[in-house]
């Protein structure tokens, strides 16, 4: 009798019920859902939503479930467990991430770091026209138009939530700092001068 009352109370635990509702929302969502979106849909407090998400994260994790709750693209989403990847690969294609060229990856990096950024700006950094790379990335849904340049009126682009999701980023802040990627600027400069001078030396 005591046992029965216990389990009844568990099922009726409001946070548990909230977790079940969030579970349902995550299943039907086509993209990652932010805490705010979940709070609005459940008409509940963001703090309680986060508690419920913690509950779900412990249930849906690698090794325990075929479905994994992940924090990605500024929100939460379900994905397949990594151990199921081979079976998943036999079932579905991944056209968004397949065959990204060097030009596309460079353009994507520039948009991710500098976005919103226009095509002329991208071209200036890469030294070649960026039109086809930009068009390809837009088609894949990895970048999208984000207004126009105030001066020249050129269309500017920024990365989409899909970009973050495809690359498994919780947000753009997870990208390595540009300065860290540029540790050897002085070395490059020295090397340039060295190469230039070596002929005469």
């Amino acid at each position, binding site marked *: 009798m005591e046992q029965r009352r216990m389990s009844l109370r568990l099922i009726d635990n409001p946070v548990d019920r909230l977790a079940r509702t969030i579970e349902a929302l995550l299943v039907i*969502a*086509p*993209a990652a*859902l932010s805490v705010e*979106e979940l709070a609005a849909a459940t008409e509940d407090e963001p703090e309680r939503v986060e508690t419920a998400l913690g509950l779900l994260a412990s249930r849906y994790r690698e090794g325990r479930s075929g479905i994994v709750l992940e924090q990605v693209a500024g929100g939460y*989403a*379900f*994905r*397949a467990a*990594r151990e*199921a*990847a081979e079976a998943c*690969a036999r079932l*579905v294609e*991944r056209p*968004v*991430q397949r065959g*990204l060229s*060097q*030009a596309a*990856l*460079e353009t*994507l*990096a*520039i948009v*991710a*770091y500098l976005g919103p950024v226009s*095509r*002329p700006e991208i*071209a*200036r*950094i*890469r*030294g*070649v*026209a960026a*039109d086809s790379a930009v068009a390809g990335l837009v088609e894949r849904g990895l970048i999208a138009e984000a207004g126009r340049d105030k001066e020249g009126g050129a269309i500017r682009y920024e990365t989409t939530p*899909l970009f973050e*999701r*495809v*690359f*498994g980023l919780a947000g753009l802040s997870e*990208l*390595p700092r*540009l300065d860290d*990627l*540029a540790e050897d*600027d002085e070395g*490059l*400069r020295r*090397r*340039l*001068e060295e*190469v*230039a*001078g*070596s*002929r*005469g*030396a």
Partner: protein
Amino acid sequence: MLPVSAVAELPLDLDAFEGPFDLLLTLVLKEELELADVEIVEIVLTFLDERGEDLEVDGEFLVLVASLLELKARGLFPEEEEVPFEDLDPDDAAGELAELLAQYRRFRTAAGWLEDKLDAESDRFFRLGPAPLAPVPERPLAPQQPESLAAALRALAAEPPAPSLRHITLTFPPVSLFLERFRAVLRRRGRFVFDKEVERLTRVEQAVAFLALLELRKAGEIAIGQAAPFEEITVWNNAA
């Protein structure tokens, strides 16, 4: 100077060449290569092949080639010798080029990081929705009343009023009426003038009367005479 084909023969994957900066950076970072050996004409030709419509890129490219030329020119002089263009800051062009290359290299490194990240995520599968979430604005229906629905249906189901035929004024008297009348007139007088006989009738009645006349003529009961077209029609008893 190496021949033009020298750049193509360098251990570089020129298919994967991604613009002058990419090529330059690769060349410069190759320790064994001397900048003086870089065929500028090759870089210019490749750029012209890939050239888009962007004037700004063209401008940047000119700066790049100019910087390259200056670097090469400086390389031709022995280090201890004074370079002949004292008015210019000799570090400017080289510094600018180094800056451009450094910036490009940061993003090339970032692109490499993204590529590695994508490889690391190759076993991450998730479902892609067809469309971004768009909360549908709620449109609550007004409370429904069966009576008003019934009233609306009743209004639709009502028998429509019979169409009025009042605008149709043509009424045809029977031909037999005129048959009897003309026979009676001929019995009394033996002959009559048709126009006078029907002059007070309506046009429709006159037409029916003429039909009756033709009937009598066909039956041989009467004879009909007319002096000329549109003259009076005279009718007399055929027997007379």
